């Protein structure tokens, strides 16, 4: 059969659109995520037919239908488990899991933590809007405490998950956060996630204009962004603030917020971000709802942690090769007969 696209001809974002009507609500943050994914895909250097999207259930999980790649829109919470099987069975495929805060952290919580631990080389995007949208507005495991929703008319009474802390606790090898309203940042994080060999967890703050509008605007609006958000860059100091005048330094293991214009602190005194330092990554992940000596810190975005370690599917293949080399393939006739037989004449 003639291939329509020559191998050396570069694909463009449109080649990744399935052409199906996109049915998210107007203004939904998911549109931006879809666009950024389609934008970076031609640059990833992967043959189109090798991409596989696996999603669960929820608004986010419809994503699969809109990508012109292989994909399964599966059942609630199970995308990570299905993706594990896809990647284990065929390590050649480029697997992307798309999920939401309910799908990944609530009904699929068990699969989420075990995927992080097992470290398949897959990308796990969680569109976190801190609300259940497809079921029309109930609180999610990331909804802030006290949130009024249809199922919590008097406010929720439970603590939310801090996803990056959860992922680190589950031994994730790549933990990052980005947001729908910062396309450039998202593109760079998506590329980094793809580059990382191992399970790349990308939490995307995603606005739900219908049930939880504006939750993350503080991190993207011009007026508030620089004070509320901390954009991490590897080997760079932790600086934020309207005039880049605030920094974070480490006093032992305690983060301290410092004003660069007073107290004699300079950039040289600041904490330098090291993606490979798990202790520091743990601290950064807690720039969420934890206060250190009464101070709350800006919300971190970027790559919080990245660690190279063996991936599951390769370990699996290696073990098979090792045993094959050592023991040799057992002929089927031998498997059928077993070790001990007797004849009846």
């Amino acid at each position, binding site marked *: *059969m003639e*291939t*329509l696209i020559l191998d050396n001809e570069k694909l463009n974002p449109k080649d990744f659109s*399935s052409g*199906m009507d996109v049915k998210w609500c107007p203004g939904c943050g998911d549109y931006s995520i879809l666009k950024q994914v389609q934008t970076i895909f031609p640059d990833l250097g992967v*043959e*189109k*037919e*090798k*991409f*596989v999207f*696996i999603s669960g*259930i929820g608004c986010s999980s419809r994503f*699969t*239908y809109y*990508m*012109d*790649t*292989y*994909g*399964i*829109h*599966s*059942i609630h919470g*199970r995308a990570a*488990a*299905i*993706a*594990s*099987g*896809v*990647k*284990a*069975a*065929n390590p050649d*495929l480029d697997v992307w899991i798309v999920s939401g805060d309910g799908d990944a952290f609530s009904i699929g919580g*068990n*699969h989420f933590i*075990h995927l992080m631990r097992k470290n398949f080389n897959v990308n796990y995007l969680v569109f976190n809007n801190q609300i259940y949208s497809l079921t029309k507005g109930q609180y999610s495991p990331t909804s802030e405490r006290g949130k009024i929703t249809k199922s919590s008319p008097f406010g929720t009474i439970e603590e939310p998950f801090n996803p990056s802390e959860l992922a680190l606790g589950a031994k994730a090898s790549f933990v990052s956060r980005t947001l729908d309203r910062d396309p450039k940042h998202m593109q760079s994080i998506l590329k980094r996630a793809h580059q990382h060999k191992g399970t790349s967890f990308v939490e995307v703050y995603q606005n739900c204009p219908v049930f939880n509008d504006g939750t993350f605007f503080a991190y993207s609006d011009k007026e508030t962004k620089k004070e509320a958000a901390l954009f991490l860059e590897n080997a760079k100091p932790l600086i934020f603030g309207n005039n880049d005048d605030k920094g974070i330094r480490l006093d032992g293991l305690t983060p301290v917020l410092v004003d660069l214009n007073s107290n004699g602190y300079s950039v040289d005194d600041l904490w330098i971000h090291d993606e490979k330092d798990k202790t520091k990554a743990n601290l950064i992940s807690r720039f969420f709802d934890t206060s250190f000596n009464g101070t709350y810190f800006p919300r971190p975005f970027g790559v919080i942690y990245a660690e190279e370690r063996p991936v599951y599917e390769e370990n*699996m293949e290696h*073990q*098979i090769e090792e*045993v*094959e080399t050592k*023991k*040799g*393939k*057992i002929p*089927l*006739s031998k*498997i*059928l*007969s*077993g070790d*001990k*037989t*007797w*004849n*009846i*004449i």
Partner: protein
Amino acid sequence: MEILKKLPEKIRTIKNVDKIVVRFSGDSGDGMQLTGMQFTDTAALAGNDISTFPDYPSEIRAPIGTVAGVSGFQVHFGSTEIYTAGDSFDVLVAMNAAALKVDLPRLKKGGIIIANLQGFDKKNLMLAQYPEGVNPLEDNSLENYIVHEVDITKHTKECLADSGLGIKDIERSKNMFVLGLLFWKFDKTLDNTIQFIKEKFSKKPEIADANIKVLKAGWNYGDSAEIFTTQFKIAPAKLPSGTYRNITGNHAAAIGLIAASEKSGLPLFLGSYPITPATDILHDLSKYKSNGVKTFQAEDEIAAICSSIGASYTGSLAVTTTSGPGMSLKTEALGLAAMLETPLVVIDVQRGGPSTGLPTKTEQSDLLMAMHGRHGEAPLPVLATSSPSDCFETVYEACKIAVEHMTPVIVLSDGYIANGSEPWRFPAEKDLASINVKFLNEANGPDGKVLPYKRDENFVRPWIKPGTKSLEHRIGGLEKENETGNVSYNAKNHEIMTKLRADKVKHIQNFIPPAKVDNGNERGKLLVLGWGSTYGAIKTAVKEAIDEGFDVAHIHLRYINPLPKNLGWLLFRFEKVLIPEMNSGQLLQLIRGEFLIPATGLSKVQGLPFTTAEIKERIIRMS
């Protein structure tokens, strides 16, 4: 062998017998399962037909010496064809008082008891809850039996006094004394077990030597002790000629999967989560890394089936193995697999339910769940295995159906079959049916479009591996438009798709063999219709009844969905139909519903297999 040449001075008689049932019974830590399996292997290698029934508690080490901790292994072996592990036993090995208490009711009158004397001390009698001062070995309550009291513990200790082994290791070897003694009693050689011990303890030669020494001591004890005067000889069975091996149901299932993988050319992937009594299939397959088998011990039952669905999507022969509680957890994903129309083999090794139920006991109570246990209408092929060796063929068949008809297939085994063993005249590789797999490699629609749900003449959709150029497409759990697979909420389309999915499964009728009468005539007064592990008990009961002149026949079903095309025709040729099941009448409901016949059920829900007598008694009553 040296010890066999030693001529004892005592007088002994050798009795030839057709068949014998031995029950090894002791504490969970006494090694009765291993002892029983070793005895079985040797009997099988000697050419006896056999059937075994391991019967143990679900606790790994239940309180020592108690009735709850009794672990039994029953082996029925003979020179005639054997189909069950036996209703009652001829020989009972009782390692302690609790074992005797549990198993005495099923010992034949006049049967032999070999009692481990130290297992009947004050403490053991108390733990077994005999009234104070009562010792069954001393109060004439066993006068209808032949009782051999043997101080197994003492003999073992004496035998290993100079071994340098600790008291724990010495105590652990006492099952070998019993085994040696039984080998003498039934005139079997020690060779196979000696070989086994050497292999098992290849890295601990002192333990191997000790076990072999005790094994031989047991044999010599039988040969020289005055109390043992009779040896039994069981000639090799007259089975059809060929090469045989001994096999358990779970192992047969495991190698059935490997065989199907090799014959189909598909890589084998097993996603599983440990659960009794299915775990051995996972254990077995994980040993076959040498053959490229991928086993994935998932984080839970749901991930186990979901990972298998993922692997199936990529073009693997995908399997998940489980038992009742796990089956319950898998149902949603099973619905997804039915909706995606992706091949998958689900092996449910049934156990007593509901809930945690009786984990180590057998039951056939998942049939209706296998048939209907999914939301929405999601019919799936359901196959049942009828004996340990039949697990191979049934599982192989299930794989063939799954990949050739693009559907999940459920295989029902059960605890009795899974752990039980029997001789198996295994097939040659070339005699295995071919498995034909096609992957779609180029567009099947107009203008280079891919139509993932365009069906062939058997209603089967194409299998398309991700990674195939230009065939990118999405599938999912939402209802899909006929042919294109695009999401569709169209009312008529949903009805068409529901029907197509059902027709596809129904159509498999054209590919399965017709039902046939296993025993008896194709017309008559009474038909006994069975499925699953009741095979041996029904076969034996029907055979005996026919021999006694009753007009009865037996049909056993492997294919429960779809049923064989000719089954209705056969059923109507009998005046009465009896359906024995280890549940409250599940096949009974299906048969009544399908054929509108007044079939009668015989149910047993005790966590134990039917005895031949139970079925025969009902046959006689209905005749």
